[in-house]
């Protein structure tokens, strides 16, 4: 039994730790969302050129930043899992993917809504919008590959390799799309204010922090389920309070 505990020590301790941390992250995420929205809508002034529409930025920019960083973090965990064969990192990678994909979706949707009043079109083949769309495809590929392999170990390793190949490709794709874009059309409308108002910055950073905390909370909650699912045959899982209760009642 001692060997068993040692072998699964990382997921075991992490399961409890994550369970304690989730409420805190969720709580502060909610508070920061409220503060960020308040500053963004009531304190920050109207932009001279974009009017009220620029306020989409407070959700659009954090969502874009998160979708990109989450991909890199996911690829990092995937690489750790592949090289050192640590079980927890592979679980983290597969827990991050859905959150990253949803942030990419939010970023695309809000980008289109921002584009309509600014450019007069829901969608332009702007370099950043296009790269974001390709990023969403990469996330979907990762999720689809992981889902279609039944053996969890092979799924983890195959998806990890794909994530690493994708992260090597991301700079090449971004560069080529930018290059392609400058060939096809002039520069698109960028944020007009050369100096962003301080309240705008505050709102943006608060929302960014809120999105980070939210993402961490959701990913931890998801990884807890994955740990339970993978380790359901081990001793420590059957001794968890929430699971042991029911069988005691039965007896």
């Amino acid at each position: 039994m001692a060997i068993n505990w040692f072998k699964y020590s990382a997921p075991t301790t992490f399961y409890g730790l994550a369970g304690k941390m989730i409420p805190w992250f969720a709580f502060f995420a909610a508070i920061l969302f409220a503060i960020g929205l308040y500053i963004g809508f009531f304190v920050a002034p109207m932009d001279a050129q974009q009017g009220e529409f620029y306020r989409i930025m407070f959700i659009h920019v954090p969502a874009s930043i998160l979708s990109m960083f989450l991909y890199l973090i996911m690829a990092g965990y995937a690489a750790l899992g592949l090289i050192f064969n640590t079980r927890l990192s592979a679980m983290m990678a597969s827990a991050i993917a859905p959150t990253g994909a949803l942030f990419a979706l939010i970023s695309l949707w809000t980008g289109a809504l921002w584009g309509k009043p600014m450019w007069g079109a829901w969608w332009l083949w702007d370099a950043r919008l296009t790269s974001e769309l390709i990023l969403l495809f990469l996330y979907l590929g990762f999720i689809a590959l992981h889902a279609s392999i039944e053996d969890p170990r092979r799924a983890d390793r195959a998806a990890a390799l794909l994530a690493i190949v994708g992260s090597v490709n991301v700079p090449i794709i971004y560069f080529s799309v930018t290059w392609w874009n400058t060939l096809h059309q002039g520069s698109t409308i960028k944020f007009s204010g050369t100096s962003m108002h301080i309240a705008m910055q505050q709102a943006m950073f608060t929302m960014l922090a809120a999105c980070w905390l939210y993402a961490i909370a959701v990913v931890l909650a998801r990884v807890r389920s994955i740990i339970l699912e993978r380790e359901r045959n081990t001793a420590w899982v059957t001794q968890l309070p929430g699971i042991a209760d029911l069988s005691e009642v039965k007896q």
Partner: protein
Amino acid sequence: MKKFTMLDLLVLVIRRDLVLAMRRRADVFTTLIFFVMVASLFPLGVGPEPDMLRKMAAGVLWVAALLASMLSLGRLFSADYLDGTLEQMMLAPQSLSILVLGKMTAHWMVSGLPLVLMAPVLGLQFDMSAQAIGVLIIGLLLGTPILSMVGAIGAALTLGLRGGGVLLSLLVLPLCIPVLIFGTGAVEAVSSGLSIASHLSLLGALLVLALVFTPWVTAQALRISME
């Protein structure tokens, strides 16, 4: 006994795969017919105006080539996987990367090269100028091997999976976007009188990068899939 060098091995694998492909000629022709058909559907879909077709030609031909090369990727490893040859190859003392490189090369010669040779005819259908067709051919020559090599990674990852074909396209197509951009960009540049050197050298750089890294990555992917 003669010493078995890496080059011998490479030639051996390429020759073996080519012989196997010649036994099943229908597969090669299916890819080619698909390529011609997709390219011919575009004028029917968007209208016969020569000006518009000339403008679209490079993009249409490149996208058709991209889709056609996806079609045959599923067969890259699956036959060897099913009859156990792949397992023997992995047990062989020779480098798996070299074996994989040989299979990639053979795959390109069977499914990429015919597309390149067919492209001028389709280019004439789209009323492209001779110069533009020349650049298109050079671009395809540099680009289609990249498609085979990047596609091999996807083929190795999806080996033996149900619904592998669609999944394979989902994984590989986003990774091929740079090739598409530089390939069509070169034709566009020559049509508008700009220099094509930058596009083609970038395509060449991608080819070298792919040549260095993809055989090794594909070998790793095969090891993961065969465990």
